[in-house]
């Protein structure tokens, strides 16, 4: 017997590095989907009162949740792009403002931000309106969904800025030099060369942000937006069945996040390119 540590690979036994390949992920995903959807269907069929009633009741809240999430996400992508570019700007003022924004927003809980936007912001506007004697401002009333989306965008835009910054920084400097040496302007270079490449890099974290946003959108229920969570609370208030309501609501959120994760994985696969 030769003396050799057990882990030393020999020619006959090539080292197999275990990896969670794409197939492993797909399997896990399918299992979860079967489990979650199966459970939801089972509950609805087996005990349609109250589960089917809950579903019918929170239906419009589900639409609001999706609407708020998708709208906020689209604007988050735009705000994040400018924030990220600002964080990389040579211009000190632009850099200063974008850094201040990111640092300020990251340090305040989202729930507090949403409450501020809903309760404090309109008062600020009304005060300004009174000072300037502009009656439209003095009588300003917020639209709950609008201000909730604003709150989500401001908060998630800051996180997204940092993701964009990292993505833009991951594009090799030579790509910019090549574009500029061909006479392309800064804006053209960003639009056609840097951002398309950065976007592919940041797709996974951006996808995560979408899922996080979907879940955090439940916080808007405290600022008078009738989303799925708020509708669930309303149902519970009249029917007094917390287990059924919150199990159903949790399952519905799970279905949405599971399918979002799937879409992100699909988009990632679509946009992959080699360097």
């Amino acid at each position, binding site marked *: 017997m030769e003396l050799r540590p057990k882990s030393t690979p020999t020619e006959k036994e090539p080292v197999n590095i275990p990896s969670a390949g794409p197939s492993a992920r797909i399997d896990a995903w399918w299992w979860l989907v079967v489990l979650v959807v199966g459970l939801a269907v089972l509950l609805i069929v087996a005990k349609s009162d109250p589960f089917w009633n809950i579903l019918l009741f929170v239906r419009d809240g589900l639409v609001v949740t999706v609407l708020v999430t998708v709208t906020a996400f689209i604007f988050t992508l735009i705000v994040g792009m400018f924030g990220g570019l600002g964080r990389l700007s040579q211009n000190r003022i632009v850099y200063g403002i974008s850094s201040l924004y990111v640092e300020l927003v990251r340090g305040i809980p989202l729930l507090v931000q949403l409450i501020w936007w809903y309760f404090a912001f309109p008062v600020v506007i009304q005060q300004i309106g009174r000072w300037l004697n502009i009656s439209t401002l003095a009588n300003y009333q917020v639209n709950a969904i609008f201000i909730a989306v604003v709150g989500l965008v401001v908060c998630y835009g800051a996180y997204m800025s940092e993701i964009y910054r990292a993505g833009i920084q991951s594009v090799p400097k*030579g790509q910019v030099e090549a574009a500029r040496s061909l*006479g392309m302007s800064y804006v053209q270079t960003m639009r056609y060369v840097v951002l398309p*490449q950065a976007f592919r890099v940041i797709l996974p974290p951006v996808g995560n942000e979408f899922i996080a946003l979907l879940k955090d959108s439940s916080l808007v229920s405290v600022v008078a937006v009738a989303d799925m969570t708020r509708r669930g609370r309303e149902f519970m208030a009249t029917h007094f069945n917390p287990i059924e309501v919150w199990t159903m609501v949790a399952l519905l959120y799970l279905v949405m996040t599971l399918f979002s994760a799937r879409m992100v994985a699909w988009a990632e696969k679509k946009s992959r390119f080699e360097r």
Partner: protein
Amino acid sequence: MEPIIHVENVHKHFGKVHALCGVNLDVYKGEVVVVVGPSGSGKSTLLRCINRLEEYDAGKIVVDSIPLDSAENINAVRCEVGMVFQSFNLFAHLMVMENICLAQRVVRKRSKEECRKIALDLLTKVGIPEKAKNYPAQLSGGQQQRVAIARALAMNPRIMLFDEPTSALDPEMIKEVLDVMLALANEGMTMVVVSHEMGFARAAANRVIFMDEGQIIEEGTPDKLFASPNNERTKLFLSKVLH
């Protein structure tokens, strides 16, 4: 005759390093100038100052009668000056065809058909028309560099700058790139080439410039400079690179 590139007393610092110490250089239309020198001698920096990828601290550069002073002029000069990099720098997310078409479309405002026609002609010229639909990562280094040359030529530059175009290539691919460059030189393109390919310098250069420590030490025809350099530093350098 007015030089097409006029470099006058240009200085450049990187922090405490004095990368260019008062460089003067005139390049005339149709000339092929090869710049040699040890690493860190400022050759690449000089080249990158000519299309203002690098800002210089003092001095004056005029390209094709356009002084490099305003943002507008810099972009105008960059349209006239093609650049080829050591690391190719093809746009990694675009196919070869799109690589060559992009700047034509957004800078030169050419139509899609015109861009594609020019691109295909140039790909034929560099010998790889069949790679139009490939991504850069699917090409060999030599092929990538030839695409990079085609991409620069598509803008109809009056001058081509080459920054060590063969240094990142495997030996068997160097020739295919040098052949393209040689053909370009024979067509009368004005070229400034930073390279250690002495064979290319002998075959194509009108003038070889030796740089060291941010200064032009010596210049002359390749025959003269390689055979009988005047300066000690030139002799020392050439003894190391000429075999």
